[in-house]
């Protein structure tokens, strides 16, 4: 087994036709990644689940079986039927339509929190790694303080102060996970910064910022993508938890966490009302976790055989 910590070793190990006579380089690299991808069940399963979720969310803007907000009291709490495949809730709204529409909120929540965590955490980690010394200490210890504060509690406090909304809750979750991104970025950036090609780039006069952007970032992108997809699943769980507590997405907007929350009151009439969104949440989290693991198998040079 070869443990190549640096991307060069991994690139050399990759079975690519030698010499410049081969196929265009970019294609070669992608085809290697694709070959690995086909042998990674987690990537395939996770990728499929995530793709279905994203498609569902997009589809919901143009089509759902019924209006997810359409109230029909005369058919409230009807179980599954041919007209309503997953039944109806206490207001007679179609559960399947609400599930499909709920995917929007889930994706939105993940995107917002990952973007906030990444857009602040990645630059913070990069600068900490490059500058070192006191600035490094200051950034990382500030991160520790943020990380030490319970994320959900922060989100609940913010929601209570600013009023319940998906965005506010997700900003809180995003901030809570800034240190995670900062740490992962700093660790891998340190390894790249000590490499010869960074020294060479400095030797031909690249400024520190350009070195980070053009040399360090592309070389740690794979690790960050993996981290983002794992954080996505954490964000989804946090969002559904807040919605369940009534502190996230306000009704009547369809969201999975909120659907479970309201279904509690009707467990005697139709227990499946809580089960459907539960399955959806479970699959979404599983999907993003598998995708993250799969991406790591494919992209992380350290796990390559």
């Amino acid at each position, binding site marked *: 087994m070869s443990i190549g910590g*640096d*991307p*060069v070793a991994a*690139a*050399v190990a*990759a079975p*690519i036709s*030698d*010499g*410049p006579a*081969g196929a*265009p*380089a970019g294609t*070669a*690299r992608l085809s290697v990644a694709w070959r690995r991808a086909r042998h990674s069940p987690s990537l395939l399963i996770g990728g499929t689940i995530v793709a279905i979720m994203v498609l569902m969310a997009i589809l919901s803007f143009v089509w759902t079986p019924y209006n997810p907000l359409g109230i029909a009291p005369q058919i409230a709490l009807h179980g599954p039927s041919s007209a309503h495949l997953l039944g109806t809730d206490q207001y007679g709204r179609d559960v399947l339509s609400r599930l499909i529409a709920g995917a929007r909120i889930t994706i939105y929540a993940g995107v917002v929190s990952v973007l906030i965590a990444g857009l602040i955490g990645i630059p913070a980690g990069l600068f900490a790694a490059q500058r*070192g*010394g006191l600035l490094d200490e200051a950034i990382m210890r500030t991160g520790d303080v943020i990380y030490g504060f319970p994320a959900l509690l922060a989100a609940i406090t913010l929601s209570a102060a600013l009023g319940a909304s998906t965005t506010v809750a997700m900003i809180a979750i995003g901030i809570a996970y800034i240190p995670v991104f900062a740490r992962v970025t700093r660790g891998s950036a340190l390894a790249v910064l000590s*490499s*010869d*090609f960074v*020294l*060479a*780039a*400095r*030797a*031909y*006069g*690249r*400024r*520190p910022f*350009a070195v980070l952007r*053009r*040399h360090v970032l*592309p*070389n740690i992108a794979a690790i960050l993508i993996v981290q983002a997809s794992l954080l996505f699943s954490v964000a989804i769980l946090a969002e559904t938890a807040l919605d369940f507590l009534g502190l996230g997405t306000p009704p009547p907007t369809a969201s999975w966490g909120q659907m479970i929350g309201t279904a509690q009151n009707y467990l005697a009439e139709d227990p499946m009302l809580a089960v459907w969104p539960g399955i959806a949440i479970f699959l979404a989290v599983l999907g993003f976790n598998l995708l993250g693991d799969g991406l790591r198998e494919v992209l992380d040079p350290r796990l390559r055989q």
Partner: protein
Amino acid sequence: MSTLSVRNLTVTLGAAVVVDGVSFDLEPGQRLGIIGESGSGKTVTALAVMGLLAPSLRATGQVLIGDRDLLAMTERQRCEVRGGTMAMVFQEPMTALNPTMRVGRQIAEAIRAHQRCTRAEARQRATELLARVEFTDPARQARSYPHQLSGGQRQRVMLAMAIACDPAVILADEPTTALDVTVQAQMLALMARLVTEENAALVLISHDLAVVSGMCERVMVMYGGHVVESGNTAQVLAAPRHPYTAGLLATSAAVSLDSDRTRLEVPYIPGQVPAVGSFPAGCPFRSRCDRATAECAVMPPIEAVGDHLAACHHPLGGPASPQIPASPQIPADLAESGKE
């Protein structure tokens, strides 16, 4: 005025002195070789001249480019000097190129670090540079990633990056050490040609006397962070005054095959280069030198001995001195002496 003038350059790591009082001047077109074993301070000297030392290392003295001292500059000013006035070629072509960047784009990067030009212009110039470093199909090879090139090709890419902005000084740190023997000569010839064409000064760092003797008119021998001998290359090699230089010369004699013997014997200098900070006080070589006396506990000044400079209390008298410490030994002895 010299292109590059290094004055009493000293590099310290905490209390340990890594490079001690190195000075040299370079005029345009001049070539200086720096010779020494690993750990003698050659690379640290080069990095200090470029202003690229790790933060834990401190450089004092002066590195004058024209009348400006690089060591006194801000990082921003140094970025202008690096690549623009001074460029560096590194030892390991395998790791000195960014694996995620096509080589053409990487050369264009080096150009755009100093010259205002569009992407297309930079790409065009990168292709021209690849042609100058003898790529047969530069337009297509510019699109390769480093891992698709051989070691020699990569080192030529490094060379193209070094000359991208017409530097006045090129520092080459063991540029051929990582290459196949067959490619080394070709690489050196190319480097000599480019340096001449650019009228740039060259600092060539190597442990290989043969490389330096073929390329440089002046040579500086380093040991333990000190310059122990320096002068005209032919004169130094013809009559080494410092026992260490003599030892190096004896070891490189092994390159030629002795046809009378059935086994190739490798001469060497007894002992090892001590770790940084554990060199003996005074002359750093005295723990390995068979001419050492009590007097050697004081570092000798570098002064004229014969036709060049040496720093030794007991300099060798001539080329055929019987005192050369490196008598031929068989490799088995080498392994044993390495254990102590």
